[in-house]
């Protein structure tokens, strides 16, 4: 039983997952597949970031698109208006998102359960409306980023999508490392304690507001980083794209689909949800019958009905079975 645990240690499984993700685009050198892989790593990382505040700390946020949008807009506006490198904009956007997270989260953390979730949803909508009405950032018309010669500094690549993928991939791995670090640190245990019972956590000396705030800052920082990357990849943003409630819901959905509160969950969820939505649309979208959305919805219903703990629940079952088998063999 102990041996089985060693074979399937979390670090090893994550490492194999990351290696597989890294080599897949090389094995299948198709640009459309590369696009799917880019969206996959971006959304897996977004799910992982959201997981820190919701999965670990138990604070359900329905407004993460706000941080994503702030990241996207900061780098885009700086690049479009002042030709500041998107890398600088990415860092600034993440810092601004972190600042906004502190300002809006502190009062919201006084709220519990559903009220916190509703507050984050409302804040997301308010921030979207500010950007829709803000003429300096072109309001509802959005920003078309100028197409420049490709290069790492301007974060534009036109001949191949692989540079976009590997930049997204490196950031995705960093997010996993951070999430892994948090999960196995004192902070991770504190967050889980707060998730299970805030009152019990307080009784043993944990300051819930401080740790929830730390979790939100880290989560918003990482979300904004991917907002900037997304804007540079699509080269066009408007408030309805990057601040939308459906975007927040997609992040929530894929994490819940994969398994909330685990490091594998967002990766598994994104690995199913993103290719499925892309390929069903490619295959059936042109018919105009919405078959792709029907299939997509069907999967979500199936998971909700039979695997409410997410896809990770299936693997958990296997692991337990494997452990039992291993134990029996040992005997």
């Amino acid at each position: 039983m102990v041996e089985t645990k060693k074979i399937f240690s979390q670090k090893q499984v994550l490492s194999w997952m990351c290696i597989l993700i890294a080599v897949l685009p090389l094995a299948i050198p198709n640009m459309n597949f590369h696009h799917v892989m880019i969206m996959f790593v971006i959304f897996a990382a977004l799910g992982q970031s959201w997981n820190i505040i919701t999965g670990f700390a138990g604070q359900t946020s329905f407004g993460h698109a706000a941080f994503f949008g702030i990241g996207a807009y900061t780098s885009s506006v700086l690049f479009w208006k002042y030709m500041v490198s998107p890398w600088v904009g990415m860092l600034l956007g993440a810092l601004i998102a972190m600042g906004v997270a502190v300002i809006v989260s502190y009062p919201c953390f006084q709220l519990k359960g559903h009220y916190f979730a509703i507050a984050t949803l409302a804040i997301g909508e308010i921030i979207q409306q500010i950007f829709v009405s803000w003429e300096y950032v072109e309001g509802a018309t959005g920003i078309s980023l100028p197409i420049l010669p490709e290069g790492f500094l301007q974060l534009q690549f036109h001949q191949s999508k692989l540079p976009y993928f590997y930049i997204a991939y490196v950031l995705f791995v960093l997010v996993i490392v951070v999430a892994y670090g948090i999960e196995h640190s004192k902070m991770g245990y504190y967050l889980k304690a707060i998730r299970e019972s805030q009152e019990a956590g307080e009784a043993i000396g944990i300051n819930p507001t401080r740790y929830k705030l730390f979790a939100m800052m880290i989560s918003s920082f990482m979300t904004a980083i991917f907002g900037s990357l997304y804007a540079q990849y699509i080269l066009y943003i408007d408030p309805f794209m990057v601040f939308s409630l459906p975007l927040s819901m997609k992040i929530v959905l894929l994490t819940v689909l994969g398994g909330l509160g685990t490091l594998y969950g967002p990766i598994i969820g994104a690995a199913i949800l993103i290719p499925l939505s892309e390929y069903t649309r490619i295959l059936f979208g042109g018919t105009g019958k919405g078959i792709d959305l029907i299939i997509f919805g069907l999967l979500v219903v199936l998971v909700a009905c039979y695997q409410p703990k997410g896809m990770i629940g299936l693997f958990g079952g296997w692991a337990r079975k494997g452990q039992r088998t291993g134990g029996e063999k040992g005997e």
Partner: protein
Amino acid sequence: MKKIFMVLLAGLLVFSLALSGCAKQQVQQSAQPEQAKTPEEKVDVVKIGAIFPLTGSAASTGVKLKYAVETAEEIINGEHPELDMPLAREAGLPNLGNAKVKFIFADHQANPEVAKSEAERLIQNEKVVGLIGCYHSSATKPASQVAERFRIPFVAGSSSSAALTERGLEYFTRIAPNDDMETAFFFEYLKYLNATYDAGIKTIGVAYIDNEYGVHAAQMVDKWLKDKYQGEGFEKVVDVKYPKDLSNVDTEVQKIKAAKPDAIFHASYIGDITQFVKKYKEFDVVPKAVVNYCGGFQDPQFVVNLGKDADFFSGSNATAPSLFAKMDTLNKINEIYKKKSGVDFDGPALEDFASAMVIADAINQAGTIDSQKVMEAIKSAVFEAPYFVSGKIKFGKNGQNEYSASVMVQTQNGKYEAVWPVDYQTAEPIPTFPAWKNR
């Protein structure tokens, strides 16, 4: 139950992998699309990508646009000697050995990100030699940027944001008049009403949805007032911007009522304009004229939704059913379209039909699928378009069709009547709204 679930999941994964495998066979390393075939080589099928909102909030419009493009495909690939227009008499493209044209449809779901990825997929995997679409200006923007990057011609049909042709793209053209042209067209129409019918229209109000379409239209009103029409006595007295997900327009309509504009410029979709008209009736708002940018008013559903209350509104439109009797070719094309869609051509559908005809005509004129030569043909040729009142299409340096394909239509007795310019009039305009209680 878990076993069933696992089987379903495995099926889905195999399905995804199979799709990836299919895609793999269409590998292309370079960013440049394949242009291996020279004019001398025989091309059997010319593929053109068509990206529309086939699902989502604008799905009903997107499906009509798809029927319009399928109508163009049928005309090009079949023999239609009864139609006096290019590519109708012979089957296929005569200058390419009668090669057939195949439009590959993609759904952008009213999402710019999806529009971009679909444009890339159509170019990379489907090897299309040109693109048309996308109805939503916000989707046309990133999709046309992809086309520019791959140096593939993009002919937009009904996307109306003026910003699209202000980006300096070399491979982008647009058929529909933009909101800049529409605004000037509206002011000229109001001047015509004042001069011919002594309508006395001086003050205007603008009601617009808070998105790219609405905001840009409102900006164009300000621009034209400042540049020209303020000097001719027009004045803006109210500006009403309303959010995208509007559930009630009481406040907006009361604001308009208080300002009492003689004419209202509307940039609204079908759901919004329907709500506004109902509230205009409820609050007894009686302007002298209401002119609508290409949007909800042009959708025949406007009349269906509102019945008699829909009368006396006006707006620019590429066509109107009342024009069919005057334009024989358009009438015959409409018969083909109506068999597919069950409804008559509306403005956006005709503009997207035109985009399909123009790109096929340009490929035929170029005699090759070489994108650079096709683009040269698009930029230099004057295309015959007997289905438009202008009769032709010619793109300017910025890619905008220089011949405005619009007429001013007004709803009269539940029908869209062409009321201006006078040459295409099917009915005289009614310059003032009657009181709501007298309808």
